């Protein structure tokens, strides 16, 4: 075990860094996707509701590994060969980010939609009765209250997304799991390798959830 740490430690830490980078990029874009489709889901407009629901259903209904292959191999093939005239190629990082953003975004959309619906309708009505627009009322009154109820679910989703980056080893992105596979192949020490990798995930996720708890407590001060 010590041998793996001394020889491959830096390599694994770099890979962990890439895992975190991928997760952060994915989460960053997922927030926008989630907010967009989450709000589409609560608008008083049938068409918007249906579009949001279809997006969520499609993404939720497809395993992420299939989504990964589809984005990484399928999309360039579609544009370059089936339609023709394009020469698109996605790096594993780009494809991975798109996958995570779509996948996590769909779940975030549902979290945001449910969070907004959990705020009493009277809050919106009171804001509108004062002459505020729908957007103002949403930004200043409804969303701030909704976000508080969403935080625990958000944290849960962040952790799931961080772990989901391991699925993207299948498209060759050199994140932690992919790198560990190589380490195992070189050393044949599978028990030690995967134990180390497991502990690395565990440490990062524990730090994340502990600091999220602190954040949650801070935001609830005075309420």
């Amino acid at each position, binding site marked *: 075990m010590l041998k793996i740490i001394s020889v491959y430690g830096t390599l694994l830490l770099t890979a962990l860094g890439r895992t975190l980078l991928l997760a952060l990029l994915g989460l960053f874009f997922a927030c926008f996707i989630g907010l967009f489709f989450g709000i589409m889901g609560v608008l008083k407009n049938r068409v918007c509701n249906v579009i949001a629901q279809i997006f969520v259903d499609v993404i939720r209904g497809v395993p992420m590994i299939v989504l990964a292959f589809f984005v990484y191999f399928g999309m360039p093939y579609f544009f370059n060969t089936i339609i023709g005239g394009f020469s698109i190629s996605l790096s594993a990082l780009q494809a991975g980010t798109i996958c995570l953003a779509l996948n996590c975004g769909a779940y975030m959309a549902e979290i945001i939609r449910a969070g907004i619906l959990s705020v009493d309708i009277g809050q919106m009505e009171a804001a509108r009765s004062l*002459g505020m627009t729908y957007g103002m009322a949403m930004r200043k009154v409804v969303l701030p209250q909704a976000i508080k109820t969403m935080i625990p679910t958000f944290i849960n989703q962040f952790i799931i997304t961080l772990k989901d980056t391991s699925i993207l080893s299948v498209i060759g992105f050199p994140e932690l799991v992919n790198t560990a596979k190589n380490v195992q192949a070189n050393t044949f020490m599978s028990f030690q390798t995967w134990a180390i990798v497991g502990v690395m995930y565990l440490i990062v996720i524990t730090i994340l959830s502990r600091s999220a708890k602190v954040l949650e407590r801070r935001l609830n001060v005075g309420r």
Partner: protein
Amino acid sequence: MADKSIKKIEVKNLKKSFGELEVLKDISTDVYKGEVVVVIGPSGSGKSTFLRCLNKLESVTGGSIIVNGVDITSKKIDINKVRENIGMVFQHFNLFNNLNILDNLTLAPTQLKKCSKEEARKRAKIMLSKVGLEDKAESYPNQLSGGQKQRVAIARALCMEPDIMLFDEPTSALDPEMVGEVLQVMKELAADGMTMVIVTHEMGFAREVADRVLFMDGGYIVEEGTPEEVLLNPKEPRTIDFLNKVL
């Protein structure tokens, strides 16, 4: 007292359905400047729906509502501009739970650029002292009693300097000992000449403050007139029946 030369609200043949359910069948009435109109009636009679149509919180199915000369049922008007002049007070107060009392009062005026932050805060403090709660500016809604919340809600509406105020059962969710303080604020408002439409079950208040009482049942205005006429000498059997039950 009402100024019969200026109509603030004109309701003509108002109809409102929720799907199959026809809640308002044919409502026509006018509200004059400075008039206090109290709407009474059994639950399910459409009084709250009628009130919510007046600032278009409910879209209407038919007929027209003209507020300050503007037909608010028209699709072309900017309803937000119209609402700036119509304050509304709700049964469940609906104070913004994420903001303290002062911010509750200043949010809409500053967002809608009616005045600077400074002015808004100054006016908010005046309004708070008017309802007797100047010491609660920094509190949050969940730290107030029901009566205090409702007085803040009235102050919040007044900060937009509306010329019409709508009250949707403002005392129905209050403990009995807090009803008086809210009604007192409303009485002062009426004495100041505010045009008010009030849905309430407080018959004593109606008798004392109303210029006109509307009795609604089954989606129609069944009877209307001065408090003496409607509350003391009702003519319609349905009004007599209702008053017998509540008085």
